[in-house]
Structures are given as C-alpha cells and as structure tokens.
C-alpha cells in the first residue's frame, strides 16, 4: 500500500468511463445540523424541526439536508477514486438537487468521466472533468453536478509520490521489523 493509489493519475481516466463508488453514506442529524452551523448557514430547515410546519407551507414534514452538505458528501464519496491525487478543485457546474434528502437516507455516488485534458496552468497535471450522480436506495436521483479537478500526471508524479509514501511510512515499518515482523 502507498499513501495514494497508483491508479489515480490523469492518464488513468478516459472519457465515458464510469465508476460506481463502493461506499455509501447514511445521512444523520449531525451531518445536517453540525455542518450547517459550521458553515454559517442560518436556514432553520437544517436545524429546527419545528420550523418545518411553516417552511413552504408545510410541504416537508422533516428537515431538509443542506444542499452544500449534500454536495460535499456526494463529492466526498467519489474522492478516493477520482481525486486522491488532485492538486486543486477548479470548479463545479450545473449543481442540482432534483429531489430532497432527509436524515436517514443512504446515498451512493457514481461518476462518469467527461474529459481529460492537459492543463494550461501547469505541465505536471491535467484537468479531469467528471459528472457525479448521487442516488438514494430507492434509486431516486437526488443530486447531480459536474466537477473539474487539477489532477497529477503519472509521468511527472508517480515516482516522486512512491518515494514520498515509502519515506513517510518507513519509520513505522522499521519499528515493526525490529519487533520481528516480516517486511510487507
């Protein structure tokens, strides 16, 4: 194992490629309330159950997940597979929530690569554009967004990343070897 996967460089993605991300996330009260408050969001629909009787004339009986939080969780579910080796987020486009998300909903994300291009910003990275779709267990699409990340190129970074990874984890491995473990 290394600190980042050896398969997450710009060369590893092709347009049209789809990734079904393995982990899901069950939304809990803390996701909505804590992250809404952490981010200064004053909309009571994310932290005051009683206010729901007044919001949009009582259209929803439960608190709605903050859209920013939904976006962050959706992107996060894709991050290990898509942006572990990223250097920056360049942008998000066409962020929509076609259906509401409530506490207790379990979300899964899929990604579809739109394009991989060289970057005008630096020559050791490329720009990965991919579409994210997040669905609940009823297979209802609850979130869609197009993300652009600056992603390291294998040619420029793979060897350096491997060396860094080995150096950072070597002290722990040395201690284990000193205690008699096999080198892994």
């Amino acid at each position, binding site marked *: 194992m290394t600190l980042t996967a050896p398969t997450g460089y710009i060369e590893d993605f092709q347009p049209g490629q789809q990734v079904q991300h393995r982990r899901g996330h069950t939304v809990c009260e803390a996701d909505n309330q804590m992250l809404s408050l952490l981010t200064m969001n004053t909309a009571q629909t994310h932290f005051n159950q009683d206010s729901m009787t007044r919001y949009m004339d009582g259209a929803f009986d439960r608190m709605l997940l903050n859209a920013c939080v939904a976006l962050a969780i959706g992107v996060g579910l894709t991050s290990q597979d898509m942006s572990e080796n990223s250097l*920056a987020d360049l942008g998000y486009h066409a962020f929509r*929530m076609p259906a509401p998300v409530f506490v207790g909903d379990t979300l899964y994300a899929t990604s579809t690569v739109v394009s991989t291009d060289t970057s005008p910003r630096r020559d050791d990275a490329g720009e990965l554009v991919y579409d994210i779709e997040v669905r609940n267990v009823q297979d209802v699409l609850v979130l869609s967004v197009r993300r652009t990340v600056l992603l390291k190129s294998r040619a420029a970074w793979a060897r350096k990343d491997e060396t860094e990874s080995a150096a950072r984890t070597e002290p722990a491995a040395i201690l284990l070897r000193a205690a008699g473990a096999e080198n892994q």
Partner: protein
Amino acid sequence: MNDSVETRAPAGVFATTTGSAGPATSTVPGTDRAPYYFEDFVPGRVFRHHWGRTVTNADSLSFATQTHLYQPRSLNTDYARHNGADGLALAELLVFSIVLGLSVEDLSESGGAFLGADDIVFPSPANPGDTLYAASVVDERRESGSRPGWGVVRWTTVGVNQDGHAVVRYSRSSLVRFRPEPDDNESTDNTGSALDASSSEQAAPSEEPTS
C-alpha cells in the same frame, strides 16, 4: 455597482403586534432583520452579507473528514508540502459552503427551495487563517409559472478574503416568496400564500434559470 447597496432589511416589515393591546412591556422579535422577499430582489441590487468567518485548519479537517474527502492535500500537511503547497489547502467546498451560508439570511431565509448553483469557481486559494466575507448581486428574477405567490431569483455571490482576493464565485437560484400582506402579521411566516407545495418543484426544469 449602484447606489442601492443594502446591509439591512427595510424597517417595519417585521413589526410585532404582540402585546399591542396589553401592558407596556411589548415583545419584540429577537432577530431584528426582516426577511427579504421577491419584491426586494431588484436586478442589480447588491447585498453585503453579515459577520464574516475566519476559517482554520480545524474547520477544514472536520469538514473534510465528515464528508469523506479523501485527498491527502486536504488531510495531510506533509503530503500537501510534498505536492508543492505551503501547507494544507482549505477544502474548496468548505469555502463555498461558508460563503453561501453567510448569504442565506439576506437571500434565502424567507424560505424557498434551492433550485441550483452554477459556475462555482475558486479564483484564488483560501488559506487556513483567512477570514471570508461575502456579497451578492441580483442577476435576474421572474414570477413562478406554476406557483402563484412565488418567484425564482438568481444571484451571483462572491467570497473574498481579508486581502480582498476572490476565493469563490458562483451563481445560485432559489424559489422566493412574495411579500405577505402587510396586515397579515399573524401569518407572516406561516401561510403567506395558500398553495399545494410539492417537492417536485425542486426538479421542475421550468423553474431553473436559463443561463
């Protein structure tokens, strides 16, 4: 931008009636700013949002870990430096979320579904310790075709740090309620208009901005 820069809601909109016929110790609303409604969102009007927010490494690490953001540049100072950065990057979606959060009281707290955000970009990186400020301008508005008493408003919001550098910029659209009848204080926040709201409004393409 123009001379209609606002930092506070118009006075009197949220005047209380509680205790008006009773003892002198009337009750006043705890938050003194009235919500803005559709009529207030005149295209070109600029809103400077409240408070500001200093963002730390702790904020970003909490946000990143609670949202599964498995990118070493957002989690590991050693690795961020290996990448050539000065240190940990603030999670970009934390910066976006805080700037949007600061805008909520002015733009969308009167209540209405989120209809989308577009063209979210990060013109320069925000660094741990930066203090974020936000302002928005009304881009366009129109009455809802399917929902009497409501409209759709689109704003552009910019977040800047203490040095005035733009760290995030985006546009956002929401359903926004028309101002309730002025003599309808009992139901100002409750039943400003009678309609059968359904969650499908959030998905209705007809309610989305065309740009």
